[in-house]
């Protein structure tokens, strides 16, 4: 029953977002003036609901919520690359792996012991490392177009995985790195101690909120309210909330980017790169930015993932993950922030929901998942929560995009004829 209620909450939230459909979509300031309230209201409502969600979840579902967060963040990042700049990246998992391995190696449990940093200290480092990886890969390859870029990125994704498998002195190869530090705050310096001190108050506040929302006293989870703790450790909730916070920040950042000169440049590149360059858009620079933003978002997700799972090995970063994230972006609606989040949630939740199928269908679980994706692409190619522009692009794809010759027949021609008759 709980999974049902969780899904209901998600669907309700999704509908809320659907109701205004325009996240990260305004390209000019003149667009959409009359509905300025719609975005902040739906955005706040959705994330408040999402923040309270753990109240109704059991531990297994909380774990699932963390996975949803990890994939939603990945899909949010890939959406910038694929949905906005229109670059097909088939090796996106590489940046996730880079983030996760940065966490594992700098956390001090790998074969290298030069640093013992906490997740919080590694986060900014991993951000920079992933960003640099994005720029290093993008610099030479973003000169390529379309299919060629897809092939090169696919190769990059595999190279990173194979490196992780073979650089045993750094990554312990196929054995993987275990005992990665969890997200505990380090009390190594006064700033962090102050944060921890404040954290106690936040923790107490959270428990009170939880008790306020929690089901009646006879409910089994009630007595275990400490299990809803937001102190980083074994409990999944703090990771979920951290992911949520990162998603909120990244959504706002990406929305601002899209609603500016940068977003216009991305749209122009996606529509006609040659014309964009001729109109003064430094196309390579903006493609690199898209790549770097996508990569660092993914790296961030990798750090939190590694710190949550506390174990990384090359098998976690296989090609199919890249494809799943791409499917999330397409399924959700390329070019739409709400769509990317919904897509990330969908690719994580659909296989889980299918677990509730009768035993004899279990083997077909991923088959059904695949079929769902295919049906989706056939009947709703623009995605769950499409951006209006991308929907228009898909619709117009088959048609001639130029106005019909002669449709622009000016009024003088017809009125002139009438005058002549008179």
């Amino acid at each position: 029953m709980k999974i049902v209620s969780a899904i209901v909450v998600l669907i309700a939230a999704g509908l809320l977002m659907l109701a205004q459909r325009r996240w990260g979509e305004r390209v000019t300031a003149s667009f959409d003036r009359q509905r300025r309230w719609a975005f902040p209201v739906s955005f706040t409502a959705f994330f408040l609901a999402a923040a309270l969600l753990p109240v109704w979840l059991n531990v297994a579902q909380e774990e699932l919520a963390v996975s949803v967060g990890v994939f939603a963040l990945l899909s949010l990042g890939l959406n910038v690359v694929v949905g906005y700049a229109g670059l097909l990246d088939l090796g996106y998992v590489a940046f996730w792996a880079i983030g996760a391995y940065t966490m594992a190696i700098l956390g001090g449990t790998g074969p290298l012991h030069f640093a013992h940093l906490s997740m919080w200290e590694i986060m900014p480092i991993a951000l920079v490392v992933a960003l640099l990886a994005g720029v290093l890969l993008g610099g030479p390859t973003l000169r390529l177009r379309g299919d060629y870029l897809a092939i090169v990125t696919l190769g990059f994704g595999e190279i990173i995985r194979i490196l992780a498998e073979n650089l045993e002195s750094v990554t312990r190869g196929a054995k993987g790195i275990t005992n990665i530090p969890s997200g505990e705050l380090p009390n190594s310096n006064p700033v962090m101690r102050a944060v921890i001190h404040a954290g106690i108050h936040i923790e107490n506040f959270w428990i009170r909120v939880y008790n306020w929302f929690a089901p009646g006293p006879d409910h089994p989870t009630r007595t275990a309210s400490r299990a809803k703790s937001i102190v980083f450790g074994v409990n999944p909730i703090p990771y979920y909330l951290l992911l949520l916070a990162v998603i909120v920040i990244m959504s706002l950042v990406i929305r601002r980017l899209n609603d500016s000169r940068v977003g216009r440049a991305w749209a122009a590149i996606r529509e006609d790169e040659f014309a964009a360059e001729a109109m003064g858009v430094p196309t390579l620079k903006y493609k690199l930015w898209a790549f770097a933003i996508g990569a660092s978002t993914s790296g961030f997700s990798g750090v939190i993932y590694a710190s949550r799972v506390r174990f990384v090995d090359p098998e976690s970063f296989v090609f199919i993950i890249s494809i799943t994230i791409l499917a999330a972006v397409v399924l959700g609606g390329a070019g739409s922030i709400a769509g990317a989040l919904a897509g990330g949630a969908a690719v994580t939740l659909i296989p889980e929901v299918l677990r509730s199928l009768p035993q004899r269908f279990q083997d077909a679980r991923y088959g059904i998942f695949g079929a769902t994706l295919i049906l989706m692409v056939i009947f709703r190619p623009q995605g769950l929560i499409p951006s209006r522009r991308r929907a228009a692009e898909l619709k117009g794809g088959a048609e001639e995009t130029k106005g019909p010759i002669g449709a622009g027949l000016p009024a003088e021609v017809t009125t002139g004829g009438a005058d002549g008759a008179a």
Partner: protein
Amino acid sequence: MALLEVSKLRMQFGGLLALDDVDLTIDERQIKGLIGPNGAGKTTFFNCVTGVYQPTSGSVTLDGKSLLRRKPHQVTKLGIARTFQNIRLFANMTALENVMVGLDARNRTSVPGAIARPPRARREEREAVVNGHDLLKRVGIGHLADNVSKNLSYGDQRRVEIARALGTRPKLLLLDEPAAGMNPSEKASLMVLIRSIREEGITILLIEHDMKVVMGICEDVVVLDFGRRIAGGPPEVVQRDPQVIEAYLGAGAAGTADAAGA
């Protein structure tokens, strides 16, 4: 004073010599025509000037600055804007957004500015909207600002393309067959528009097949054939040049036909 100076421009694609030592200068505030039969190298000439192709040899300078070894977006910032033979608007963006992309060539907000939105970024954005509307009004389609450009009529798309090019604040505007596919009254109003752009101090180089348009607005014409410059001068003179007539109508036609009929 010469704004654009092109000398001995040569473009070789493998065994094909697309431009063979072409010389061309344009004075400030001039309207110059570049004509020639299909395949003569006119669009290749545009592409060499705007940085799309790196010429095999020769020199191209704008206001004394060399344009060679620059990327197209850098050439645009130096002051050359263009339109395309086959309209190349951003089809799913509105007319206003198309023009704003052009205006952005002079804006400086990048990723950090777009996120933090300091006052300068906000001002640029506001001005881009205002100036975008102004430019669309300027080319006569102010009321179509919020229409998605692929839904506009052919003539209006041409106008959006010109407005987008003007948005980059060019010194020199290159128009590649602006009148193609237009009916006579659209052509007439296009000629009025081109003249008025020149009145604002913008120099214009135009490729055109329609001789009425060329004769109507160009003060000077250069004729290309098989990548070579075969004639140049005032349109009335060029029109009667036997070599030009031959290029358009074939050998033997020179005595009987008029190039304007081509």
